[in-house]
């Protein structure tokens, strides 16, 4: 982990309350998709954890996609190109792409979707063909469909109200798909439902309120089948079989 300075290059709205920010900075630190950074914002005491959606070590760019849900993310949404952010990065262990078969399921819900783009790029690089299923509440919330399509991946969008793609929840969409491994990121309830319905092994990325983000405070501990683990340090990605759901 390092303390670094990132500079905002672009920051644009890509869906209802959802923004995509591309920053210039040291991207060579990241070792796996699913890792995150912790961002210091003006006049807020705690840092804000945001996943790395995508990064390019050569160009030195990092892509974040975040939803404006409160003071901190609202402040981020107002940042202009040239603004700088103090961040701690990289944090956490990301997805382990060495396990799982050639056609894993990649399942995202809402702003759980961003890190899955970096994940899919990695999977594709390793010669795999993930099937991507993304769930949103409604049409206005949908983002990143073309990014996944551009990777040549089968991409299914579901919305709760059916205003875009299939109607329903990602769990519904998953029922029709055969896969022996999955990667998922999204709301707690969605991940729980997935783990209860999918027979396959897989990895899920969790969120917890964090004090530090690098393992010092025990603020983010969860109880797993292997004892307590820190979402920020041993996670945020956990093998589903560790979770006692």
């Amino acid at each position, binding site marked *: *982990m390092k*303390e670094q300075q990132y500079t905002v290059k672009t920051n644009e709205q890509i869906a209802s309350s959802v923004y995509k920010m591309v920053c210039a900075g040291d991207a060579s630190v990241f070792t796996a998709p699913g890792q995150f950074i912790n961002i*210091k914002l003006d006049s*807020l*005491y*705690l*840092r804000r954890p945001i996943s790395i959606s995508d990064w390019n070590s050569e160009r030195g760019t990092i892509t974040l996609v975040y939803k404006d849900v409160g003071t901190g993310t609202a402040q981020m949404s107002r940042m202009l190109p040239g603004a700088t952010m103090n961040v*701690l990065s990289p944090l956490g262990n990301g997805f382990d792409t060495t396990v799982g078969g050639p056609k894993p399921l990649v399942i995202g819900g809402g702003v759980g979707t961003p890190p899955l783009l970096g994940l899919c790029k990695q999977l594709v690089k390793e010669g795999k063909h993930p099937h991507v299923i993304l769930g949103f509440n409604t049409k206005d919330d949908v983002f990143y469909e073309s990014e996944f399509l551009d990777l040549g991946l089968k991409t299914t969008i579901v919305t709760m109200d059916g205003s875009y793609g299939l109607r329903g929840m990602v769990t519904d969409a998953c029922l029709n798909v055969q896969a022996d491994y999955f990667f998922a990121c999204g709301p707690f309830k969605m991940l729980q439902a997935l783990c209860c319905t999918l027979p396959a092994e897989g990895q899920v990325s969790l969120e*917890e*309120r*964090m*004090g*530090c983000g*690098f*393992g*010092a*405070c*025990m*603020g*983010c*501990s*969860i*109880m797993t089948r292997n004892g*307590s683990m820190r979402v920020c*340090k041993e996670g945020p990605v956990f093998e589903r079989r560790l979770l006692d759901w």
Partner: protein
Amino acid sequence: MVNTKISLCGIELDNPIIPASGTFGFGKEFAELYDINILGTFSFKGTTHHERFGNPTPRIAETASGMLNAVGLQNPGVDAVIKDYLPDMKTYFHKPVMANVSGFSIEEYVDVSRKLDQQEQVGWLEINISCPNVHGGGMAFGTCPTAAAEVTRAVRGVTKKPIILKLSPNTTDIAAVAKACEDEGADAVSLINTLLSMRISLQTKKPLLHNITGGLSGPAIFPVALRMVYQVYQAVRIPIIGMGGISSAEDVVEMMLAGATAIQIGAANLVDPFICPQIIQKLPDVMRKYGISDLSTIIGGAHHG
């Protein structure tokens, strides 16, 4: 050349900067970031008899210039600390360490203290009688002078190492609690632990922390901590370790002027993991700016003249 050395219960520290218990783990996460031997020492995570998971999440919330935690003393238990953590700590920390002893009964304090007393690496035992995040008495010991006295007496009986009683701010008269500890043989007191607080979510209309209440730390509590250190300084003759919101070399000086011999840094480590080396680096400049050549001479300076 300015002198940042201070002496704490007979052990000399290179500087008064001590990361606070619960914000520095057992030092390992920070040892990966910088050489933690530059610190005066550090206080390791509050250790109980048995392993504890602590409270369910959410355990953390944000406040203006501060944070709440309701970790609830998650720790591996004293035996695992001795078996797994202390030997490892030897590889990256070579100074006497401060052992933070927590508990739910006098027997537990005694028991954990007796075990940690045997550890050569342990320089001081910091007896946390003030954790607000555990049910069943953890805090009560620190809010009442007679209970605090009892813990002190009991622990005093099982160790020759310096014992530091860590006091709660959630009390009417912290000076009385400190005095009670001194009278029973405490070698020092440390203060303050966190201020009992809460936040409520407007979305769910329920408390944000699963534990309902949590402890407030960070710059928000600095002026409260300063006042308490000042009051305790007038009540006792043993050294005081001051803490609560310290985030800069200036804060260190202010806290020492109030009466602290050494200081601890808690929440600031979490939001800025390099804060301790930064403060240690800046301290000499700040001392020069305010005409201080020997840090130990300013202890309690605000009381004199």
